[in-house]
């Protein structure tokens, strides 16, 4: 994202190759990288197994968000329960001790899960700029149906449209299109 962002001022040229089979897109993606081209992104109707390796993507760091906020939520809650029950207004409830730690566990757990899950999803949506009502910009209208789109960014002048198109077709691309956009999809 960051890389795309710096170039967003300028118009970029993208080459979009559409594939119809999962096996073809996997092969083509690997081939693009082997040939040293820059993959802007690959668009698939479902998470294609192995594509992350083919694209050489790093694993997501969202688990850290999940862990940190889950822990924060749990700590906050256990403190809050202790503070309300034993410090702010200690009330004798059924002769139980002021600090009834075991009784605080269930709510603490629930709040931990709630914090962890919501923060992870929020981080994901925010990180991928997925917002309600946002207009989707599609590489191909059927990319959410049954097509796989490989989008190659034309980084430098040495990019040869014809050559790339040719071997992409060879790899099974059913359709190839060039598009000029202000930013990536």
């Amino acid at each position, binding site marked *: 994202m960051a890389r795309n962002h710096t170039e967003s001022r300028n118009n970029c040229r993208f080459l979009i190759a559409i594939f119809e089979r999962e096996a073809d897109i996997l092969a083509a993606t690997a081939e693009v990288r082997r040939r040293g081209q820059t993959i802007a992104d*690959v668009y698939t109707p479902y998470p294609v197994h192995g594509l992350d390796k083919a694209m050489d993507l790093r694993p997501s760091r969202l688990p850290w968000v999940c862990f940190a906020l889950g822990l924060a939520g749990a700590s906050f809650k256990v403190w809050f329960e202790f503070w309300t029950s034993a410090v702010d207004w200690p009330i004798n409830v059924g002769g139980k001790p002021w600090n009834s730690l075991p009784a*605080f566990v*269930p709510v603490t757990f629930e709040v931990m899960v709630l914090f962890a899950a919501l923060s992870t999803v929020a981080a994901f949506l925010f990180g991928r700029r997925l917002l309600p009502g946002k207009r*989707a910009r599609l590489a191909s209208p059927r990319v959410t149906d049954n097509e796989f789109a490989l989008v190659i960014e034309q980084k430098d002048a040495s990019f040869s449209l014809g050559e790339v198109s040719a071997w992409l077709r060879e790899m099974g691309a059913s359709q190839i299109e060039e598009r000029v956009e202000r930013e990536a999809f």
Partner: protein
Amino acid sequence: MASAVAISEGPLILGNKTPGIVTTDICSSLERTPAPSWWIAIAFSGSMLLLGLVAVAYQIATGIGTWGLNNTVGWAFDITNFVFWVGIGHAGTLISAVLFLFRQKWRTSVNRAAEAMTIFAVICAGLFPLIHMGRPWLAHWMAPYPNTRGSLWINFRSPLVWDFFAISTYFTISFVFWYVGLIPDMATLRDRLKAGWRKRVAGFFSLGWNGSFRTWLHYETVYLLLAGLATPLVLSVHTIVSWDFATSVIPGWHTTILPPYFVAGAIFSGMSMVLSLMLIARKTMRLEDYITTRHVGAMCKILIATGGMVAIAYLTEFVTALYSNNQYEQFAFMNRAMGPLCWSYWIMVGCNVLSPQLLWFKAVRSNMAVVFVVTIFINIGMWFERFVIIVTSLHRDYLPSNWTGYAPTWIEIATLVGSFGLFLTLFLLFCRFVPVIAMAEVKGVLSHGKKPH
């Protein structure tokens, strides 16, 4: 679990589908005008819902006295329905989260509907603690917020507070989990539909999804994390629900076996409900290729396993009571089996212990009609299990002078019917407006276009 349902019986999805066919198959049922059967169904469930709404409105306007409760039996249909619906809900989470963690690919055909069922069941469940209050308009007092009372907080030692947190968390997480799973399919729908309000709605909820694999990568992580969080959550929720009873002093409630017993029961009842619904959907929505005998068979095996756990729990309770040398404890269980409400106990045993034994036979498992009947029996039995636990324990506790009976009023029965109405109405609307099968996930398990293994 994984071994119990190990799949080696052929392809998951029949009919040699391609992703495009999947899209068409699933979306076309949303795009057609609804079949008359759907209209009949929604009219039926809608009237049930209406009946329930009238009953609840009457009850809130008049008082809890319109239920058959008394000074000894303070809970009956209300909390029975609550626990029942929470239990139903758990199967959805289990199918989507636990089976996801166990990499059970067969879940993809059923997880969407199962998750929807979870949400609707939790809505139904959440309704009951609310309306069972004497003063439901003060329900917000359950939440700890700063106030002008000093501040007077809430009692974190009360299992009802735990419940409040557990159910609201569970609903939130289930909803988020379901919605996250729905985002790609919403995008599919958006891109298929012609311009119109449905396209705009789908567009709004698809959050601008464009199938980017970078997003998919994070998405899969999120999904995994949610599954990982939902799994202990589902266990915790029913454990907490069981603590409503287990932490009390009432014989028949006050027992340590309740948490595992409840969780097993929840899975058992939920699975049977999922199966009931899927069998209906399979037939009415012509999804035989997606929900195959293999799916049904796998779920039947889960039913046998969880039914067995439940049966063991029933037995253990008795043995524990017998061994306790505590006259109240022993009486509570003798009274269940032979007291004035023993019919409810034997319905429970008949439905939950005996009827699933039929599923040992493959012939039964592959006969959809018989399986359907068995699942209905299990649903009935599991409702009665909660009824037995709540009512038979309460109606005859320590002091013989307090012993009473219990009989529901029409208002209570109408409320139960209404909760089914709510559930079915929501489910039917879901079938109409939301892809009932997780297309993106099904596409992922198709053999089409993949390199042969």
